[in-house]
Protein backbone atom coordinates (compact mmCIF):
# COMPACT_ATOMS: atom_id res chain seq x y z
CA UNK A 1 0.00 0.00 0.00
CA UNK A 2 2.84 2.40 0.87
CA UNK A 3 4.58 1.53 -2.41
CA UNK A 4 1.36 2.28 -4.30
CA UNK A 5 0.97 5.65 -2.54
CA UNK A 6 4.63 6.46 -3.25
CA UNK A 7 4.40 5.69 -6.97
CA UNK A 8 1.05 7.50 -7.41
CA UNK A 9 2.55 10.59 -5.73
CA UNK A 10 5.83 10.45 -7.71
CA UNK A 11 4.13 10.04 -11.09
CA UNK A 12 1.58 12.70 -10.10
CA UNK A 13 4.39 15.15 -9.32
CA UNK A 14 6.07 14.26 -12.62
CA UNK A 15 2.80 14.88 -14.53
CA UNK A 16 2.38 18.27 -12.82
CA UNK A 17 6.05 19.23 -13.30
CA UNK A 18 6.05 18.44 -17.03
CA UNK A 19 2.62 20.11 -17.33
CA UNK A 20 4.14 23.34 -15.99
CA UNK A 21 7.12 23.01 -18.37
CA UNK A 22 4.68 22.88 -21.35
CA UNK A 23 3.84 26.57 -20.85
CA UNK A 24 7.15 27.73 -19.38
CA UNK A 25 9.55 26.85 -22.20
CA UNK A 26 9.87 29.10 -25.25
CA UNK A 27 10.69 26.14 -27.55
CA UNK A 28 7.47 24.71 -28.97
CA UNK A 29 9.07 21.34 -29.72
CA UNK A 30 10.14 21.12 -26.09
CA UNK A 31 6.55 22.01 -25.12
CA UNK A 32 5.21 19.08 -27.16
CA UNK A 33 7.78 16.72 -25.61
CA UNK A 34 6.97 17.99 -22.09
CA UNK A 35 3.28 17.31 -22.75
CA UNK A 36 4.22 13.82 -23.96
CA UNK A 37 6.12 13.17 -20.70
CA UNK A 38 3.25 14.62 -18.65
CA UNK A 39 0.69 12.36 -20.35
CA UNK A 40 3.04 9.37 -20.00
CA UNK A 41 3.34 10.12 -16.25
CA UNK A 42 -0.49 10.14 -16.11
CA UNK A 43 -0.46 6.71 -17.81
CA UNK A 44 2.09 5.51 -15.22
CA UNK A 45 -0.26 6.79 -12.47
CA UNK A 46 -2.96 4.53 -13.95
CA UNK A 47 -0.51 1.60 -13.80
CA UNK A 48 0.32 2.47 -10.16
CA UNK A 49 -3.43 2.48 -9.45
CA UNK A 50 -3.63 -1.10 -10.87
CA UNK A 51 -5.53 -0.03 -13.99
CA UNK A 52 -3.16 -1.77 -16.38
CA UNK A 53 -5.19 -1.75 -19.61
CA UNK A 54 -6.06 1.96 -19.44
CA UNK A 55 -2.49 2.85 -18.40
CA UNK A 56 -0.92 1.12 -21.39
CA UNK A 57 -3.62 2.57 -23.69
CA UNK A 58 -2.95 6.08 -22.37
CA UNK A 59 0.82 5.79 -22.88
CA UNK A 60 0.47 4.35 -26.43
CA UNK A 61 -2.17 6.90 -27.51
CA UNK A 62 -0.33 9.90 -26.10
CA UNK A 63 3.06 8.84 -27.51
CA UNK A 64 1.50 8.84 -31.00
CA UNK A 65 -0.59 11.95 -30.47
CA UNK A 66 2.22 14.10 -29.07
CA UNK A 67 4.69 12.97 -31.77
CA UNK A 68 2.18 14.22 -34.37
CA UNK A 69 1.75 17.42 -32.36
CA UNK A 70 5.55 18.00 -32.37
CA UNK A 71 5.57 17.65 -36.18
CA UNK A 72 2.72 20.18 -36.47
CA UNK A 73 4.61 22.53 -34.17
CA UNK A 74 7.62 22.52 -36.48
CA UNK A 75 5.32 23.01 -39.51
CA UNK A 76 3.23 25.88 -38.21
CA UNK A 77 5.24 27.86 -35.70
CA UNK A 78 7.13 30.99 -36.63
CA UNK A 79 9.86 30.10 -34.13
CA UNK A 80 9.61 26.37 -33.28
CA UNK A 81 13.07 26.27 -31.64
CA UNK A 82 12.30 29.22 -29.36
CA UNK A 83 15.60 30.91 -30.30
CA UNK A 84 13.93 34.32 -30.72
CA UNK A 85 12.42 34.24 -27.21
CA UNK A 86 8.99 35.38 -28.50
CA UNK A 87 6.23 35.90 -25.94
CA UNK A 88 3.17 34.06 -27.22
CA UNK A 89 0.78 34.73 -24.37
CA UNK A 90 -1.99 37.21 -23.69
CA UNK A 91 -4.29 38.08 -20.74
CA UNK A 92 -1.71 36.44 -18.48
CA UNK A 93 -2.99 37.72 -15.13
CA UNK A 94 -6.57 36.65 -15.86
CA UNK A 95 -5.39 33.22 -17.04
CA UNK A 96 -3.29 32.63 -13.91
CA UNK A 97 -6.27 33.68 -11.75
CA UNK A 98 -8.64 31.37 -13.64
CA UNK A 99 -6.19 28.44 -13.38
CA UNK A 100 -5.61 28.95 -9.65
CA UNK A 101 -9.35 29.30 -8.94
CA UNK A 102 -10.18 26.19 -11.03
CA UNK A 103 -7.51 24.08 -9.29
CA UNK A 104 -8.30 25.54 -5.85
CA UNK A 105 -12.04 24.91 -6.03
CA UNK A 106 -11.45 21.32 -7.24
CA UNK A 107 -8.94 20.65 -4.43
CA UNK A 108 -11.35 22.05 -1.82
CA UNK A 109 -14.09 19.76 -3.17
CA UNK A 110 -11.67 16.77 -3.05
CA UNK A 111 -10.98 17.40 0.65
CA UNK A 112 -14.51 18.47 1.59
CA UNK A 113 -16.54 15.61 0.19
CA UNK A 114 -16.98 12.43 2.21
CA UNK A 115 -16.01 9.80 -0.36
CA UNK A 116 -17.32 6.91 1.71
CA UNK A 117 -15.61 3.55 2.12
CA UNK A 118 -12.54 3.06 -0.08
CA UNK A 119 -11.91 -0.32 -1.75
CA UNK A 120 -8.49 -1.78 -0.95
CA UNK A 121 -8.34 -4.69 -3.39
CA UNK A 122 -8.62 -4.10 -7.14
CA UNK A 123 -9.60 -6.88 -9.57
CA UNK A 124 -6.54 -8.44 -11.24
CA UNK A 125 -5.48 -7.26 -14.70
CA UNK A 126 -6.87 -10.21 -16.67
CA UNK A 127 -10.20 -9.96 -14.87
CA UNK A 128 -10.35 -6.21 -15.54
CA UNK A 129 -9.70 -6.60 -19.26
CA UNK A 130 -12.29 -9.36 -19.55
CA UNK A 131 -14.91 -7.40 -17.61
CA UNK A 132 -14.23 -4.23 -19.66
CA UNK A 133 -14.62 -6.25 -22.86
CA UNK A 134 -17.93 -7.63 -21.61
CA UNK A 135 -19.01 -4.08 -20.69
CA UNK A 136 -18.06 -2.76 -24.15
CA UNK A 137 -19.91 -5.53 -25.95
CA UNK A 138 -22.85 -5.53 -23.57
CA UNK A 139 -24.43 -2.71 -21.65
CA UNK A 140 -22.19 0.07 -23.09
CA UNK A 141 -22.17 -1.14 -26.69
CA UNK A 142 -24.22 1.82 -27.98
CA UNK A 143 -21.83 4.32 -26.32
CA UNK A 144 -18.81 2.43 -27.69
CA UNK A 145 -20.23 2.41 -31.22
CA UNK A 146 -21.14 6.10 -30.93
CA UNK A 147 -17.53 6.87 -29.94
CA UNK A 148 -16.29 4.94 -32.99
CA UNK A 149 -18.64 6.75 -35.39
CA UNK A 150 -17.67 10.09 -33.78
CA UNK A 151 -13.97 9.43 -34.46
CA UNK A 152 -14.77 8.46 -38.06
CA UNK A 153 -16.85 11.63 -38.53
CA UNK A 154 -14.06 13.77 -37.04
CA UNK A 155 -11.49 12.17 -39.38
CA UNK A 156 -13.65 12.88 -42.44
CA UNK A 157 -14.45 16.43 -41.24
CA UNK A 158 -10.78 17.20 -40.47
CA UNK A 159 -9.71 15.94 -43.91
CA UNK A 160 -12.47 17.93 -45.63
CA UNK A 161 -11.47 21.12 -43.81
CA UNK A 162 -7.78 20.57 -44.54
CA UNK A 163 -8.21 20.06 -48.33
CA UNK A 164 -7.06 23.24 -50.14
CA UNK A 165 -9.87 25.55 -51.26
CA UNK A 166 -8.50 25.55 -54.83
CA UNK A 167 -8.74 21.74 -55.05
CA UNK A 168 -12.37 21.87 -53.89
CA UNK A 169 -13.14 24.70 -56.33
CA UNK A 170 -11.73 22.64 -59.22
CA UNK A 171 -14.21 19.90 -58.39
CA UNK A 172 -17.02 22.45 -58.67
CA UNK A 173 -17.87 22.37 -54.96
CA UNK A 174 -17.42 26.09 -54.40
CA UNK A 175 -16.38 29.36 -55.95
CA UNK A 176 -12.67 29.85 -56.54
CA UNK A 177 -11.10 32.41 -54.15
CA UNK A 178 -10.03 35.76 -55.55
Amino acid at each position, binding site marked *: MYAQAFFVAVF*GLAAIGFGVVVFRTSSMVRSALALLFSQTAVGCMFLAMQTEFLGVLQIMMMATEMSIMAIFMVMFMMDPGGMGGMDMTHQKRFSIGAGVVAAGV*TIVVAFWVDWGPV*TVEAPDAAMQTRALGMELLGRSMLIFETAGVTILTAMIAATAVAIPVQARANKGEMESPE
Partner: protein
Amino acid sequence: MTAILIVALVTGAILFGIGVYGALSQTNLVMIMMGVELILAGALVNLVAFWRFLHPEIYAGQMFVLVVMTVMAVEMAVGFGVAIARFRARGSVEMEEARDLKG
Protein backbone atom coordinates in the same frame (compact mmCIF):
# COMPACT_ATOMS: atom_id res chain seq x y z
CA MET B 1 -6.21 4.17 1.02
CA THR B 2 -8.18 7.42 1.21
CA ALA B 3 -4.82 9.23 1.12
CA ILE B 4 -4.02 7.74 -2.31
CA LEU B 5 -7.46 8.79 -3.58
CA ILE B 6 -6.85 12.34 -2.32
CA VAL B 7 -3.35 12.41 -3.91
CA ALA B 8 -4.86 11.37 -7.25
CA LEU B 9 -7.69 13.92 -7.00
CA VAL B 10 -5.30 16.75 -6.09
CA THR B 11 -3.04 15.78 -9.02
CA GLY B 12 -6.05 15.85 -11.35
CA ALA B 13 -7.13 19.24 -9.96
CA ILE B 14 -3.68 20.79 -10.47
CA LEU B 15 -3.44 19.39 -14.03
CA PHE B 16 -6.90 20.88 -14.67
CA GLY B 17 -5.74 24.28 -13.36
CA ILE B 18 -2.57 24.24 -15.49
CA GLY B 19 -4.69 23.32 -18.52
CA VAL B 20 -7.15 26.17 -17.87
CA TYR B 21 -4.21 28.59 -17.62
CA GLY B 22 -2.73 27.28 -20.90
CA ALA B 23 -6.00 27.31 -22.84
CA LEU B 24 -6.73 30.92 -21.78
CA SER B 25 -3.25 32.44 -21.98
CA GLN B 26 -1.77 31.06 -25.20
CA THR B 27 -2.13 32.83 -28.53
CA ASN B 28 -1.21 29.88 -30.73
CA LEU B 29 -3.90 27.38 -31.75
CA VAL B 30 -1.69 24.32 -31.19
CA MET B 31 -0.67 25.57 -27.71
CA ILE B 32 -4.35 26.14 -26.85
CA MET B 33 -5.01 22.51 -27.84
CA MET B 34 -2.19 21.47 -25.48
CA GLY B 35 -4.03 23.26 -22.65
CA VAL B 36 -7.25 21.42 -23.47
CA GLU B 37 -5.29 18.11 -23.49
CA LEU B 38 -4.08 18.85 -19.94
CA ILE B 39 -7.64 19.67 -18.80
CA LEU B 40 -8.81 16.30 -20.15
CA ALA B 41 -5.79 14.54 -18.56
CA GLY B 42 -6.90 15.95 -15.18
CA ALA B 43 -10.39 14.58 -15.80
CA LEU B 44 -8.91 11.16 -16.72
CA VAL B 45 -6.89 10.95 -13.48
CA ASN B 46 -10.03 11.69 -11.45
CA LEU B 47 -12.13 9.14 -13.35
CA VAL B 48 -9.56 6.35 -12.91
CA ALA B 49 -9.17 7.19 -9.20
CA PHE B 50 -12.94 7.14 -8.69
CA TRP B 51 -13.23 3.79 -10.47
CA ARG B 52 -10.27 2.19 -8.65
CA PHE B 53 -10.95 3.37 -5.10
CA LEU B 54 -14.73 3.81 -4.97
CA HIS B 55 -16.43 1.45 -7.45
CA PRO B 56 -14.00 -1.11 -8.94
CA GLU B 57 -16.89 -3.52 -9.54
CA ILE B 58 -18.68 -1.14 -11.97
CA TYR B 59 -16.89 -1.13 -15.34
CA ALA B 60 -18.92 1.78 -16.70
CA GLY B 61 -16.23 3.87 -14.95
CA GLN B 62 -13.53 2.48 -17.27
CA MET B 63 -15.92 2.95 -20.20
CA PHE B 64 -16.18 6.64 -19.28
CA VAL B 65 -12.34 6.87 -19.42
CA LEU B 66 -12.44 5.44 -22.97
CA VAL B 67 -15.04 8.07 -23.96
CA VAL B 68 -12.79 10.88 -22.63
CA MET B 69 -9.82 9.41 -24.56
CA THR B 70 -12.05 9.49 -27.67
CA VAL B 71 -12.82 13.15 -27.02
CA MET B 72 -9.04 13.82 -26.81
CA ALA B 73 -8.45 12.14 -30.17
CA VAL B 74 -11.39 13.95 -31.83
CA GLU B 75 -10.21 17.30 -30.45
CA MET B 76 -6.74 16.72 -31.92
CA ALA B 77 -8.07 15.65 -35.33
CA VAL B 78 -10.49 18.57 -35.72
CA GLY B 79 -8.02 21.05 -34.20
CA PHE B 80 -5.29 20.12 -36.65
CA GLY B 81 -7.80 20.25 -39.56
CA VAL B 82 -8.72 23.81 -38.55
CA ALA B 83 -5.02 24.68 -38.04
CA ILE B 84 -4.16 23.51 -41.58
CA ALA B 85 -7.08 25.45 -43.09
CA ARG B 86 -6.14 28.58 -41.13
CA PHE B 87 -2.45 28.27 -42.06
CA ARG B 88 -3.35 27.94 -45.75
CA ALA B 89 -5.64 30.96 -45.62
CA ARG B 90 -3.50 33.34 -43.54
CA GLY B 91 -0.05 31.74 -43.17
CA SER B 92 -0.32 31.66 -39.39
CA VAL B 93 -2.18 29.89 -36.58
CA GLU B 94 -1.97 32.83 -34.18
CA MET B 95 -5.39 33.38 -32.63
CA GLU B 96 -4.68 37.10 -32.08
CA GLU B 97 -4.88 37.47 -35.86
CA ALA B 98 -8.15 35.52 -36.11
CA ARG B 99 -10.47 38.30 -35.02
CA ASP B 100 -12.15 38.12 -38.43
CA LEU B 101 -13.66 34.78 -37.29
CA LYS B 102 -15.70 36.66 -34.69
CA GLY B 103 -19.36 36.51 -35.71
